[in-house]
């Protein structure tokens, strides 16, 4: 009887431990802090740091985009919050936007972030009601970022100098 109990305990333990190892190799945490964050995501208890998010928003509104991105990156280390990823993408757009040319690197980062936001949003559609923004949906922002990374003859149009940042 005792042997059977040990067998069952061993079986369960082996399955649980094996699953943990597979999960670790799948998520590839970089530190023990990452392990904790990933565990929260897996358990469904993950929440962003609201204080850092608000700090990022304040910085964003003062046009300090790089600092805002840093705040939002640390507010959402697991990149699991659609709204934070949307704002991150927006910060990349605003910082990378230029009257003469766009910063390709920032636009690519923005595109990655907005794609994450779309993937995380329920039904793939995300709307952010923020009066300070001119684009309220992730789809609009994505289209704008995609246009910025494409190269075509319209780029040579001198009237583009009069366009406005959104």
């Amino acid at each position: 009887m005792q042997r059977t109990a040990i067998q069952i305990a061993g079986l369960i333990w082996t399955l649980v431990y094996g699953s943990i190892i597979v999960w670790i190799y799948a998520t590839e945490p970089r530190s023990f802090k990452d392990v904790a964050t990933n565990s929260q995501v897996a358990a469904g208890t993950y929440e962003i740091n609201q204080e850092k998010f608000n700090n990022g928003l304040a910085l964003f509104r003062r046009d300090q985009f790089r600092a805002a991105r840093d705040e939002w990156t640390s507010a959402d280390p697991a990149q699991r919050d659609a709204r934070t990823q949307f704002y991150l993408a927006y910060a990349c757009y605003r910082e990378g936007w230029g009257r003469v040319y766009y910063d390709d690197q920032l636009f690519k980062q923005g595109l990655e972030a907005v794609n994450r936001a779309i993937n995380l949003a329920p039904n793939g559609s995300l709307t952010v009601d923020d009066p300070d923004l001119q684009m309220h949906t992730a789809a609009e922002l994505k289209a704008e970022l995609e246009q910025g990374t494409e190269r075509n003859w319209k780029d040579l149009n001198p009237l583009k100098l009069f366009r406005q940042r959104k």
Partner: protein
Amino acid sequence: MKRYAERNRALLHFIVVPTLLLTVALLGGLRIDAPTKQFIFIAPPLVTLVMAILLGLLFVRAGAIDLRSWLAIDQPALTNLAHLLTLIALVFASAQAFNSVLPESGLLHWMFSFFFLWTLWTNQFSSFDPRRLLRSIMVLFGTAFVLKHLLAAGLYAPEGGLLRRLVSTLLQGIAIDVPAFAPVTGYISFFALVLYVVALLLIAPAPAPPPASEVNQIAVREDALPE
């Protein structure tokens, strides 16, 4: 006294051995990045899985694992399932043990892989007993550990001395790509290999049969069944 022995044997067989093997599977692919001190988990490359299968075959051929005793039709399903999980853990632990002593990329990776495969393949046709096989495995892993974590890591360390310059000059033009890992990676690999050898020492070729009392109980229950 006998009850304690049986209980301890069961604990060892069903809990300690799988735990040791799975810990090897966890640590075998763990590296620590030198500049950032961050974890890097390297999943076992395909070649290490091939090596693990070859090593598994070697265990069976040498009698270190008697498959017919581990998985038998006249054993309870629970026991067979527990044994199957232990054997799977052994294969993955072997793969990760190879992974921990195999250089990650470049010419050295392929050289080490070739020598491992060559050794394992030629050993398939040698006569082994479990003890000799274990000694051979210890030497194989020990040599690879010394070559990777002491020699190669020393040669390509940023603060390498005359030997490093000499080898760099000799092998100029050959892509020997050794990633920079923190020295603690060597300690992790050493610990994983020690655990692997301990687990191999603890694995019995044929698991002990269930105690007579349990067998009697099963027999009595079978008798009580209506025909």
